[in-house]
């Protein structure tokens, strides 16, 4: 599985994501600069956290118009796994690949800590190696992670089982304690917590590793299906 880590000016979790894929998961990974226009040859796309374009205007608002975006949309339409973490989630929302928006944390603070998350939907290509209702702990680090959507959208997300992770103790004011959601097709996941910072026992937490292993398992299963 060849994986791309998109790098915008202001991305700062790109290295963590790269290491998580290369050392944690052990598959091929490359950085792709935002000025590129093609993602041909990549099987999975990672949009890392950070402060792309300095969060000017709104988080993710400028990144959405970068040169690489049409290729990301194309990969999403082709059904390839697209994972957006933190600022990556904000970018996916601005690009319209996921519904809703992320606004300033309810308490106005930038929060950097490890939080408890409930795995709500283990039936996705990103969460299949978790158990339903399992509680995992992942780091968060954001000032604007307060997920907002209107009631109709929330009802749809719930009805279609598209809330993948929710907070045990809501840290930021997100509606319905939402920490991560998936698109209708099930191949685009956006989440505020950082699985890429929890892939090595040496650093005290491996709860995030199974997310990446789930993606790899999905890719292996789909390749096996194609070649069978």
């Amino acid at each position, binding site marked *: 599985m060849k994986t791309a880590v998109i790098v915008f000016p202001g991305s700062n979790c790109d290295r963590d994501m790269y290491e998580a894929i290369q050392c944690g998961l052990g598959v091929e990974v490359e950085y792709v600069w935002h000025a590129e226009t093609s993602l041909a040859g990549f099987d999975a796309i990672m949009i890392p956290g950070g402060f792309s374009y300095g969060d000017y205007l709104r988080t993710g*608002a400028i990144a959405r118009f970068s040169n690489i975006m049409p290729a990301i949309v194309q990969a999403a339409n082709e059904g390839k796994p697209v994972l957006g973490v933190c600022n990556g989630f904000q970018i996916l929302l*601005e690009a319209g690949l996921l519904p*809703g*928006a992320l*606004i300033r944390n*309810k308490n*106005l603070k930038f929060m950097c800590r490890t939080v408890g998350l409930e795995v709500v939907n283990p039936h996705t290509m990103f969460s299949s190696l978790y158990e339903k209702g399992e509680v995992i702990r992942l780091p968060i680090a954001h000032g604007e992670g307060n997920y907002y*959507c*209107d009631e109709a959208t929330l009802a749809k997300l719930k009805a279609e089982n598209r809330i993948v992770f929710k907070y045990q103790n809501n840290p930021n*004011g997100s509606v319905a304690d939402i920490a991560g959601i998936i698109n209708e097709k099930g191949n685009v996941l956006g989440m505020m917590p950082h699985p890429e910072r929890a892939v090595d026992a040496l650093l005290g937490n491996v709860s995030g590793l199974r997310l990446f292993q789930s993606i790899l398992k999905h890719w292996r299963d789909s390749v096996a299906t194609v070649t069978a």
Partner: protein
Amino acid sequence: MKKVKVYVTLKEGVLDPQGKAVEGAMHRLGYPEASGVRIGKFIEFAMTDDACSDQNIRELCEKLFANTVIEEFRYEVEEVTSP
């Protein structure tokens, strides 16, 4: 040439924690009468006359200046008088 002034504010019903914090400070400054504080953004730019259509400005507002999931916008267009 025209000058366009765009005002972006959070929609009613969307929590504005910044507005809440500023409101608290206003009260402590001695104005308990003040309420409903909302923080927004102001964007201005110049545009050539022929490109300055409502359709174009709306597209800029809807796709870039505001996120219509959480924000609303209004704008004014002014004639730029050459000095």
